[in-house]
């Protein structure tokens, strides 16, 4: 079986532009959550979000570094963020894209949970107020989810598989898993894979708030709002950003002397078949996706040193995931560190799975488990479990498991590790 390794990393998160900035601030226990100031939130119950810092702030994002001014107007922000993360990952990997053969064997698989929600909201208002003749010819391509990958493919000449994923908050994990299988099956040697999201807006916030999914009790202390497994948690915090990996067939990467960050060792998928927004109360969906990932990796729980949890800071979800992990790991639980990086960056929805896979890879590379911020008063079920509260922890990490669970009952688990 062909093996798949990671040779390039790129991200834009509420902790900043670029992998190094985001990681350094993450392990320094900094928060990317803030009071929303881009638009009116006076009539919304949730007023905090993880927003990518703007120009002039530390790690500030400047769109025109990644897309020209003309194209910027024609693309929803979720596409712009994906292009930025892809630019970093592709440059980092040094993949050759000169010959027809190289281009034809390199593909893209970038997804989003929601896509161009703000573009759709804006266009609907134009339609209502000014009529159909004022709708831009670029409206549809600015909002379509697969156009994040489409734009990346056009910019870099990636002419292999051109695919996308839409599985809510599992999107970013499914993108990596599915792209790695395209390489395993020989459809491509290189895949640029990831997730992107930019749905923080009045419509997105109103929708998630109506579903009673968001934190509303920390509007005046935004950095405290995301607190996985803490007794005071009251919902997730919406966030924006993108993560992109360059995945490459192992021998292909070795032959060109590429820097290899990690191997994609395992990938598991499952469905809850239970409810549109609530997780199955027995936590079995997550348990089965993790089990499937271990099976595909040929590993046991004792081989896993770090779990990057889905851990969104919702009352029910955190408890069920913790229960499922404990049930799966059994005695091996005492040697595992598990944290939720959503405590620092919020929930990047369709980008979360990719950004968290990158954090898991960096945890392995640097021997550091990133912290769970705001875990001041853990729930009882967390007794005896190392949830890396408040501060990062140095430790040896050979293999890491990253979970993503989405609306619709869609679950994905990835295992990344040091290549044997």
């Amino acid at each position, binding site marked *: 079986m062909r093996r798949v390794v990671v040779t390039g990393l790129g991200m834009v998160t509420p902790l900043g532009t670029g992998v190094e900035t985001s990681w350094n601030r993450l392990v320094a226990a900094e928060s990317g959550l803030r009071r929303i100031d881009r638009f009116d939130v006076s009539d919304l119950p949730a007023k905090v979000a993880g927003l990518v810092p703007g120009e002039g702030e530390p790690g500030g994002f400047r769109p025109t570094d990644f897309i*020209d*001014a*003309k194209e910027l107007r024609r693309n929803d922000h979720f596409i712009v963020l994906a292009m930025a993360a892809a630019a970093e990952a592709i440059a980092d990997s040094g993949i050759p894209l000169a010959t027809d053969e190289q281009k034809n064997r390199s593909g893209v698989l970038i997804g989003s949970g929601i896509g161009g929600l703000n573009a759709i909201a804006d266009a609907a208002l134009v339609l209502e107020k000014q009529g159909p*003749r*004022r709708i*831009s*010819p*670029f409206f549809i*391509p600015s909002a379509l989810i697969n156009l994040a990958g489409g734009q990346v493919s056009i910019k870099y000449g990636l002419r292999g598989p051109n695919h996308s994923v839409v599985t809510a908050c599992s999107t970013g994990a499914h993108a990596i898993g599915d792209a790695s299988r395209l390489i395993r099956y020989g459809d491509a040697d290189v895949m640029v894979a990831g997730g992107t999201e930019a749905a923080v807006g009045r419509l997105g916030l109103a929708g998630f708030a109506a579903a009673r999914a968001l934190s509303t009790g920390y509007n005046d202390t935004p950095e405290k709002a995301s607190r996985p497994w803490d007794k005071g948690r009251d919902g997730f915090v919406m966030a924006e950003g993108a993560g992109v990996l360059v995945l490459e067939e192992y021998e292909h990467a070795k032959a060109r002397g590429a820097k290899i960050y990690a191997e994609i060792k395992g990938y598991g998928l499952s469905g809850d078949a239970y409810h549109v927004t609530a997780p199955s109360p027995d936590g079995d969906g997550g348990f089965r996706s993790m089990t499937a990932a271990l099976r595909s990796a040929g590993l046991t729980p004792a081989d896993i040193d770090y779990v990057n949890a889905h851990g969104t800071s919702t009352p029910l979800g955190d408890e069920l995931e913790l229960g499922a992990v404990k049930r799966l790991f059994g005695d091996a639980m005492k040697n595992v560190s598990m944290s939720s990086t959503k405590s620092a960056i919020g929930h990047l929805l369709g980008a979360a799975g990719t950004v968290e896979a990158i954090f898991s890879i960096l945890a392995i590379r640097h021997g550091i488990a990133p912290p769970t911020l705001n875990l001041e008063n853990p729930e009882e079920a967390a007794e005896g479990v190392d949830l890396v509260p408040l501060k990062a922890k140095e430790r040896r990490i050979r293999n890491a498991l990253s979970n993503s669970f989405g609306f619709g009952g869609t679950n994905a688990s990835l295992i990344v590790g040091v290549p044997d």
Partner: protein
Amino acid sequence: MSDIAERVKKIVVEHLGVEEAKVQENASFVDDLGADSLDTVELVMAFEEEFGVEIPDDAAEKILTVKDAIDFIKANS
């Protein structure tokens, strides 16, 4: 009336991201200025908005150069 020409050229520069010097009156949007089919639709919309005119589809199809646009707007605004 030269004001119309200047405003047309400004819109073309902004929407197509081309250098001002290239936007001569005889320049073709597609052949000389690199516009594709979506660009030309957007350009016509921008002319409509700027000059408060309606450019029907059959007229828009005949606006192929900078001069075509200027002439249409002069005749209809």
